[in-house]
């Protein structure tokens, strides 16, 4: 009898834990991540932030060494590419003034707002994706710095994602490549609009709702559309088209976009203190 009671105890403990976990899941779902559950998350992140900062500083060189060792070929290739890009930039510098004038004219023509007018909060990426599923990163600025949920996040090259969760000193950014992410976009040449959706890995985006009759060029720039109610301001670069094809009888083209930002190597980003017009 005693043996039976003893062997039943682990199962009883497991049952209690499962019920507790299901209760927490229900509470989280009902509260939409706010309320007590949100406060618990905020408190935990804020309390752990100093430890995380110290550990990040201590371990970053090891991580950099590992990345360098594993991706040596990539680094070498990138080095060569950067040298070539630098040489090209030297030449382009001479045409910079004219290019700037042309760009302004193009922006005016397309009725795009200049993203530079929007106030920004500079931040450092302190945590990369915390799991193999989670295409989010954490930055070292939060509510205290004026960051709020929904704000777009950019780097020098273009759109990174948007803020989905904020505590006092930290914010979580949903990357544009996450499957939950969808961004209203416009093709620079044709002006056609579509939706850039994440695919769950940090490589490419899928462009939906592009008319099969639209001519989409490889290398064509894709920017945020900024249509009414859009959660992103207009004219922020998303990336470039790497493939486009129309299937027979298909109602839309299969368009693949490579993000302008290297989401694997994010270090510094800027949060745009922007919210869509009501």
């Amino acid at each position: 009898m005693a043996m039976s009671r003893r062997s039943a105890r682990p199962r009883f403990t497991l049952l209690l834990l499962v019920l507790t976990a299901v209760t927490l899941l229900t509470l989280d779902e009902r509260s939409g991540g706010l309320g007590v559950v949100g406060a618990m998350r905020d408190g935990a992140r804020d309390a752990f932030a100093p430890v995380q900062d110290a550990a990040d500083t201590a371990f970053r060189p090891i991580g950099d060494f590992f990345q360098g060792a594993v991706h040596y070929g990539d680094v070498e290739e990138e080095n060569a590419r950067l040298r070539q890009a630098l040489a090209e930039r030297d030449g382009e510098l001479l045409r910079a003034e004219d290019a700037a004038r042309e760009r302004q004219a193009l922006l005016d023509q397309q009725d795009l707002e200049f993203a530079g007018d929007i106030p920004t909060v500079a931040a450092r990426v302190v945590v990369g994706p915390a799991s193999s599923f989670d295409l989010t990163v954490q930055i070292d600025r939060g509510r205290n710095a004026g960051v709020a949920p929904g704000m777009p996040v950019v780097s020098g090259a273009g759109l990174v994602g948007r803020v989905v969760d904020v505590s006092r000193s930290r914010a979580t950014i949903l990357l544009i490549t996450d499957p939950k992410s969808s961004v209203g976009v416009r093709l620079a040449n044709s002006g056609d609009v579509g939706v850039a959706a994440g695919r769950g890995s940090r490589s490419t985006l899928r462009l939906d709702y592009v008319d099969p009759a639209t001519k989409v060029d490889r290398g064509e720039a894709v920017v945020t559309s900024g249509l009414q109610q859009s959660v992103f301001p207009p004219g922020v670069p998303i990336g470039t088209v790497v493939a486009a094809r129309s299937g027979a009888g298909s109602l839309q083209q299969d368009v693949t976009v490579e993000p302008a930002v290297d989401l694997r190597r994010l270090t510094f980003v800027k949060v745009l203190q922007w919210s869509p017009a009501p």
Partner: protein
Amino acid sequence: MEPGPLMLVAPRLLLVVFAGLTLHLSLFATIRIGDVRPDVLLLIAVAGGIAGGPERGAVVGFAAGIVADLFLHTPLGLSALAFSLVGFGVGTLQSSVIRAAWWIPPATACMASTAGILLYALLGALIGRPEFLEPRVLAVAAGVGAANAILAPALVPVMAWAMPHEPDRSYV
């Protein structure tokens, strides 16, 4: 948990879980191949089952899962549910092992971590996150399993230290 050593075990477990979280969010956030990286908190659940049996494995898995949920943008309780089931499963499996061998902990960590990721994805899909069941989940699960297998020989003795009153047939 076994009565008696709770005062000794609880602080050690907390220390191990938070040290694991620190490593997970710092060192192992940068050590990734492709999109796959070790999942230290899942490995803590597996090691808890190996070192402590089904009951302790479930409790350690739940604790590691709750900590993971607080720092991930996933529903609170999802990792706790998956990890406690993994800890319990590993603990049940280890109590049936008769012979000790050096390769058993890494092999167990590999299989249990792979199963844990698949279970996490399945439970996530059941509660409204169907994107977790995308095709690459198999590659992710296999990658996490391999990475955790490499780390298991280091972590299992740490868990044995954290839970000194081992069950009779533990193979640690």
